[in-house]
């Protein structure tokens, strides 16, 4: 296991080196956080309204979207990006690499992101979830070739897909408003802040010296993930009268359900 400790030391060194930029991100994070808390009473109200009753489903429960024109612009941008860039690349990649291998890559990245799920389980007071995620990490890392095989799921160890956005949600913070980021897609103010926070726990962000290397790995992850989801976005578009509104609402509903879990 000498390799492991060397890697860990290596990661620590990188972390030290990154202090100035990490500080800037933290500062940005702080300001975003402040912004969220100033508006939170309203947000909490908005979320509580979401508890729907079978009898009175007429209540409108939607995420606020004050920047709709800008969001629509980026939605169109992402749409084009998907059809003209991402989809062709992912389709070619899919043709080259068989599905089990691509699932393996996806499992590897998921296993690597263990610190995010583990910490957020703890932050949400989900002891069982934290224990389960810890067990999954150990099992998959040591038994699943460093995470390439999700042995734990085969053994019936449940995944706890928790992130900081959900943690805020569990704490009673509403989504704020909808944001459709270029490249990254649907999010909300709360979940964007959550993603930045989770980034601090993502080993991929510490593994490389150069930003370009980190971005390359991220891009590869996205291509691999897309190759496993080809057709999903198309069916959403096909079924929707207004794909922008449909995606926004699907994002909102899905996040709400995940927070409730």
């Amino acid at each position: 296991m000498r390799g492991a400790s060397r890697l860990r030391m290596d990661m620590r060194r990188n972390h030290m080196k990154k202090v100035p930029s990490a500080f800037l991100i933290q500062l940005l994070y702080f300001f975003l956080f402040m912004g969220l808390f100033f508006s939170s009473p309203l947000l909490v109200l908005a979320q509580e309204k979401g508890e729907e009753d079978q009898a009175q489903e007429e209540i409108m429960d939607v995420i606020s979207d004050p920047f709709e024109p800008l969001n629509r612009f980026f939605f169109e941008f992402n749409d084009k990006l998907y059809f003209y860039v991402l989809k062709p690349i992912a389709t070619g990649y899919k043709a080259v690499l068989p599905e089990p291998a691509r699932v393996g890559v996806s499992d590897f990245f998921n296993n690597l992101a263990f610190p995010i799920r583990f910490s957020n389980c703890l932050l949400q007071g989900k002891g069982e979830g934290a224990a389960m995620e810890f067990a999954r990490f150990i099992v998959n890392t040591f038994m699943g070739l460093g995470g390439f095989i999700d042995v734990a799921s085969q053994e019936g160890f449940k995944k706890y897909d928790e992130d900081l956005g959900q943690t805020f949600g569990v704490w009673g913070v509403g989504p704020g408003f909808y944001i459709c980021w270029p490249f990254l897609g649907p999010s909300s103010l709360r979940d964007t802040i959550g993603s930045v926070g989770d980034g601090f726990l993502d080993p991929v962000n510490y593994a490389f010296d150069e930003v370009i290397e980190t971005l390359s790995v991220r891009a590869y992850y996205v291509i691999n993930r897309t190759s496993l989801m080809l057709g999903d976005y198309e069916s959403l578009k096909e079924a929707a009268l207004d794909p922008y509104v449909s995606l926004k609402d699907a994002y909102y509903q899905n996040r709400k359900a995940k927070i409730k879990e």
Partner: protein
Amino acid sequence: MKGKTIILVAFLAAMVLSAAFFAPVVQGAAFLAPVVQGAALPAWAGGPTDRMKDTTDKIIAIVSDPAFKGPEKAEEKKKSIRAVVDEVIDWEEMSRRSLGIHWQKRTDEEKREFVRLFSLLIEKTYRDKAEDYAGEKVNYVGEKIDGDYAEVESRILTSKNTEIPVNYKMTKKQGKWWVYDIVIEGVSFVNNYRTQFNSILSSSSYPGLVKQLKAKTEKAEAKQ
């Protein structure tokens, strides 16, 4: 960069080697799984879950039937699927809930037309999903009944090592359970369409909405 690659390879090699030593531990840990998964599921009979199981089995039988293969059988297959789906989905209830407050303002004629168009759209979406069926397993994991309302919880196990939670919201009418909403990964069909309809109605009008719905279903039908 090069040094890092070597470290990574060494790390992975160490993992593989250590796997052999950890194997007994892991097998030991496997006993935890059933405890965490919870007790065995209760058996229920004649309820909403049975309705859904029955429907899903019928649909799977149709899409896996070699007799329906090929483009010349597409129309026949479509009719068979529609017949099965019509047996379990309450189209009017689904339409009413999707239009929300706007439903009351419609005449009977408008309601009929809306139900027809909306059911075509939903059916098309559902059929596309069903046609993609590739032997995925469907597990029924729970059922909640509250008077005349019920929710059936199912999980579709995909080949990609993921579970898709699909819930059916049902209501009892004349002694039979009918689906009025399908919730996939927490996203309700009815809520999603209601949000879209409201958005369209706030910037356009009801005839405008019907026009869009018509265009959508016609486009979908033309694509067959």
